[in-house]
């Protein structure tokens, strides 16, 4: 408990120190990461804790964003609230819209619930472009951060601290929520809502409230994005944002409180760092998601838990080679994948086809990749990824061997239990 608290304080201190360590561009990325982390955590309240898989959470993020932009532009641009409190307008927007949408969506559960959330999000998404007065049409609505309380909010650093303060507060509230009666009942909803009815609970009321609270924090995230961008556009209702919330949450891991936040921050950072380097970012995101779902259903934070369990049972000296090999294996496989995807992307690109037509009949022109030129017809070119994948497979096989040896070495955990049991029943 104490250790967790110290880790959290250290993490917050590190986040607070970032403006002194990062460039303006990276600080902007950090703001986006914080917002995505809050959005994913809000989403996970519904998805991971209450077990309600919503496919349309962008709607509540977007409503929060537009509530904030209108609050900032109200009173002739002076704003309804002081600038630092603007995310509250987003939270209120999300809460109200979430309560209404949630009342309908939670009439059903499982697949039907998911379909209703999808339909509501799609409704807002297709309606928004037509309501120019509210959503500003193609151009969107722009706004200004008004100076308040001696701060002008003109620099990225000030916006960063404002975002950080709100995100940390919201995350703390979301965590404390799990310790309340309603927070415990949220888990009950996921586990067995049928039983809750027979314990005297109003399951529909509870589901609606949980939905609304999740939408409220999503709306707050939307409001923070408006504060950062000084504009809102109906693009925030795009289904890809809903999808990103689902993917980030599951990549991070739904079972750990900070998992979704971690996943969202990581994926947002990659999106920022890699989208300049490749045109296939969405493909990488998809591959990562599929791999995590196939091999790590508990997400990346689940990996930490697995490593933790291994470290409890075995000496670090025995685990070290395993970790090194596993990391090397991941790097090699990743390098092979990147090489293959980038090479194929260039071969299938329009520019390359134009080159081929220009030199029709001749050999395929070389492709420039990673500061070298590669002949598409040469076995040496395709040998590179094959070699990488081969080495990765070899390391994977070796890792499995070590893992099996570790499992054989320890006293079988199921050994003493049955003996005890037979004593009891005898």
């Amino acid at each position, binding site marked *: 408990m104490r250790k967790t608290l110290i880790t959290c304080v250290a993490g917050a201190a590190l986040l607070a120190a970032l403006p002194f360590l990062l460039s303006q561009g990276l600080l902007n990325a950090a703001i986006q990461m914080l917002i995505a982390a809050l959005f994913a955590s809000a989403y996970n309240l519904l998805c991971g804790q209450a077990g309600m898989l919503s496919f349309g959470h962008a709607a509540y993020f977007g409503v929060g964003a537009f509530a904030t932009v209108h609050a900032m532009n109200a009173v002739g641009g002076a704003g309804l609230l002081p600038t630092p409190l603007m995310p509250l307008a987003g939270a209120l927007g999300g809460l109200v819209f979430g309560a209404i949408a949630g009342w309908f969506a939670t009439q059903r559960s499982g697949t039907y619930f998911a379909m209703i959330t999808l339909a509501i999000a799609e409704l807002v998404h297709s309606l928004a472009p037509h309501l120019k007065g509210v959503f500003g049409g193609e151009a969107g609505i722009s706004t200004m951060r008004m100076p308040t309380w001696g701060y002008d909010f003109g620099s990225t650093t000030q916006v960063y601290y404002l975002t950080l303060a709100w995100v940390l507060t919201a995350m703390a509230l979301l965590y404390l929520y799990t310790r309340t009666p309603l927070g415990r009942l949220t888990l*009950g909803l996921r586990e067995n809502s049928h039983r809750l009815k*027979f*314990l005297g609970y109003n399951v529909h009321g509870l589901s609606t409230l949980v939905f609304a609270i999740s939408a409220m924090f999503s709306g707050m995230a939307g409001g923070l994005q408006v504060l950062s961008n000084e504009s809102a556009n109906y693009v925030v209702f795009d289904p890809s944002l809903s999808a990103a919330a689902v993917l980030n949450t599951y990549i991070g891991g739904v079972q750990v409180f900070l998992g979704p936040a971690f996943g969202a921050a990581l994926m947002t950072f990659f999106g920022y760092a890699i989208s300049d380097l490749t045109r296939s970012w969405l493909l990488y995101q998809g591959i990562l998601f599929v791999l995590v779902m196939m091999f790590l259903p508990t997400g990346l934070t689940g990996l930490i838990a697995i490593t933790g369990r291994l470290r409890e049972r075995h000496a670090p000296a025995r685990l070290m080679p395993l970790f090194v090999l596993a990391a090397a294996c991941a790097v090699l496989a990743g390098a092979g994948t990147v090489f293959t995807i980038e090479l194929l992307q260039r071969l299938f690109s329009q520019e390359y086809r134009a080159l081929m037509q220009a030199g029709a009949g001749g050999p395929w022109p070389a492709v420039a990749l990673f500061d070298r030129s590669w002949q598409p017809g040469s076995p040496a070119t395709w040998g590179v990824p094959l070699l990488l994948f081969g080495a990765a497979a070899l390391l994977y096989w070796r890792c499995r061997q070590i893992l099996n040896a570790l499992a054989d070495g320890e006293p079988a955990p199921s050994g003493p239990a049955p003996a005890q049991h037979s004593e009891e029943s005898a």
Partner: protein
Amino acid sequence: MSDPILALHGLRKSFGPTDIIRGVDLQVRTGERHALIGPNGAGKSTLFHLVSGQLAPSSGAIRFEGREIGGRTPQAINRRGLARSFQITNIFPRLSTYENVRLAVMRAHGLQYAFWKFIDRDRRIREETGRLLDLVRLAAKAGSVAGEMAYSEQRSLEIAMTLASDPRLILLDEPMAGMSHDETEYTSQLIREISAGRTLMIVEHDMDVVFSLSDRISVLVYGQVIATGTPAEIRAHAGVREAYLGDEATP
């Protein structure tokens, strides 16, 4: 004789053209232990579903303490003071045993939408949860994942959760199913204890338990009550012997 706590009049339930409950008249007296027996498919569980609100009756009346409850929601019926357990274990499988009982206890203390206080700080809830766990001999298992416990332990947990709302009428649906002889004996004694000051209605297949535990027994066959009476009366009832009990089952 006091007024019946539960009275069923001309109760019917059909699923499409299939009649499951075909005109049941039954009275459960306040304070008694009333067993409901009958062959498989007689409609015992359906009758429990109707009384507890899981199903709405097709026609007829269900009166609990004089008030009609037929077709009410399960939570409304539970709040009136009627709690049930389930034949197929119905718990929160991935939560701890402690958490399972605590979720059941919270409602009786008026906690539902509360997000402004911490549950761990509530002494009443802690004490009541501990008391119930002790009662069903699960205190040592408080930290275990409920769904990973032995089947009989899950049955005991079911009973603890049913008791949490301090109900005046308890419906237990086969509480001893899957229990060993020792466990059955303990649970039988437990049911005797918890039914002090309450009314109990129980569906059970173990005839030893039924005949030793209950004050009165009703026999449900093919959706109709063919007899109600004391264990001695039921044992002697010719129609019951023919329809259901069979000589080897008669204690």
